């Protein structure tokens, strides 16, 4: 887009961040009472809610139930007021269905599915305000919600996006940077073991630059992990303190 400098000469991005700097992340666990686990996350201006129900009996007859694993069911939905132009179909369009499938595959790898045969876990993600990095924020929110619900997982799942502008890899891209047409790499990892669970790349990127961008994105997920971990630990100690007060 002519006229908009994604990366200024001094090395600052449109919103004033340095190339390797993540947006500010604020998150909270246990925001809803009806859901077994819930979380709210704000990454810059992107606001996402996640709710987890389960494990419970498979809905829609036990025909779909797996005899040795739990069925992970996801739904990704964007609120109609979440984007600049009103979104006519909050879910059911191709992009949402693709995101839903990606989320399902990602979490199938992380949840210990063999513990709950013939049952179902539902993960619902709702994007309230969208400013780029929807998938990443959804994955992070869903991880927090699953931890809040007490569902056993092998590790956290943290996601981060990255792009390449003017020979410089930038991390955690927002909507303007996404729509400028540059390459977009989204990666979701299990941070402790540095294993990649999900990887997607759009647009063209020279193979020499690939490792640079991938490294920056994986480092981004480790930074995200720090923030999420702190939030989880704070939440656990708060809940324990609340219960002790309750019992005493």
């Amino acid at each position, binding site marked *: 887009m002519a006229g908009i400098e994604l990366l200024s000469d001094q090395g600052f991005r449109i919103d004033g961040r340095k190339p390797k700097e993540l947006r500010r992340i604020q998150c909270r666990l246990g*925001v*809803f*009472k*009806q*859901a077994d686990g819930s979380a709210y996350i704000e990454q810059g*201006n992107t*606001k996402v*809610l996640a*709710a987890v*129900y389960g494990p*419970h009996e498979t*809905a829609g007859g036990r025909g779909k139930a797996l005899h040795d694993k739990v069925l992970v069911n996801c*739904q990704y*939905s964007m*609120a*109609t*007021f*979440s*984007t*600049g132009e*009103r979104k006519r179909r*909050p879910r059911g369009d191709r992009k949402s269905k693709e995101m839903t499938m990606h989320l399902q595959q990602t979490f199938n790898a992380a949840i210990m599915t063999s513990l709950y045969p013939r049952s179902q876990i*539902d993960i*619902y993600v*709702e994007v*309230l*305000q*969208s*400013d780029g990095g929807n998938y990443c924020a959804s994955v992070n929110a869903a991880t927090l919600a699953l931890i809040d619900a007490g569902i056993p997982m092998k590790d956290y799942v943290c996601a981060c996006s990255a792009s390449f502008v003017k020979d410089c890899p930038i991390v955690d891209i927002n909507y303007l940077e996404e729509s400028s047409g540059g390459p977009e790499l989204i990666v979701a990892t299990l941070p402790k073991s540095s294993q990649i669970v999900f990887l997607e790349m759009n647009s063209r990127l020279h193979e020499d630059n690939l490792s640079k961008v991938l490294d920056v994105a994986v480092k981004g997920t480790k930074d995200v992990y720090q923030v999420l971990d702190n939030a989880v630990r704070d939440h656990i100690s708060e809940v324990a303190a609340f219960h002790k007060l309750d019992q005493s």
Partner: protein
Amino acid sequence: MADDFKAARPLEYYRKFLEKDVRPDGRELGEFRPTILNIGCISTAEGSALVKLGNTTVMCGIKAELATPKTEEPSNGYLVPNVELSPLCSPMFRPGPPGEQAQVLSHFVNEVLDRSGCIRKEDLCIQTEKLVWVLYCDILCLDYDGNVADACILSLLAALKSTRLPAVKYNEETEKPETDSAKLEPLHILSNPVSSTFAIFDDRLMFVDPTVKEESLTTGTVTIVTNDNDLCIVQKPGGSPLTADQINTCFERAFSRSKEVLRLIDETLHSIER
């Protein structure tokens, strides 16, 4: 032990509390749950509000678009409300097209907007026969803990009050609208509809603002929408019969609730402007 009794015999559990004129969460029969209001939380929407009525959480977002008016009403804009009860908010709802309850609520919100006249459709007109505003009011329930109707109306009113629309002029020669995003004007809100829901238990007792557990045990409900000092809508869809006295007590409580709510909205709006 109390939890087991509550699960096995919910009706008996509730009866024991109601005999003493109190409810399991400690509220009196005429007491609403604590209400929290957060206005202007979504910056991509022209107006937004988040309401927490106890645990029931409802978010309303207002998006405005330009459109041509209907031929039979050339100087009227439109208001399109829509209520969504997604499976996110409760295990009762399944994914798929809007269920019965969501459709009934959408229709209810539409009635409230129509009858209360809080926004005049003529005010949304920019140029007769050519250009009008369409306000899409999308209400999303995030946590269903009973009494969603009251929360929806409250969030809608708060969101409408916080809506800022850019000034638009219709250029006669090019037949195109010219928006000036720098100038933002608030909507003209002519009246303040506020809703109060009462639940009937065991054909005799009435209490206000039922939670989801209470809703499943009630034998009937009454919803009253007041509009400043007038009654706007009274809805009693079947259920146990009531005497005129009981309905009069409901009216009084609905009016006093309306004052509480309007004060809350004003305080919240003032604190934002500061």
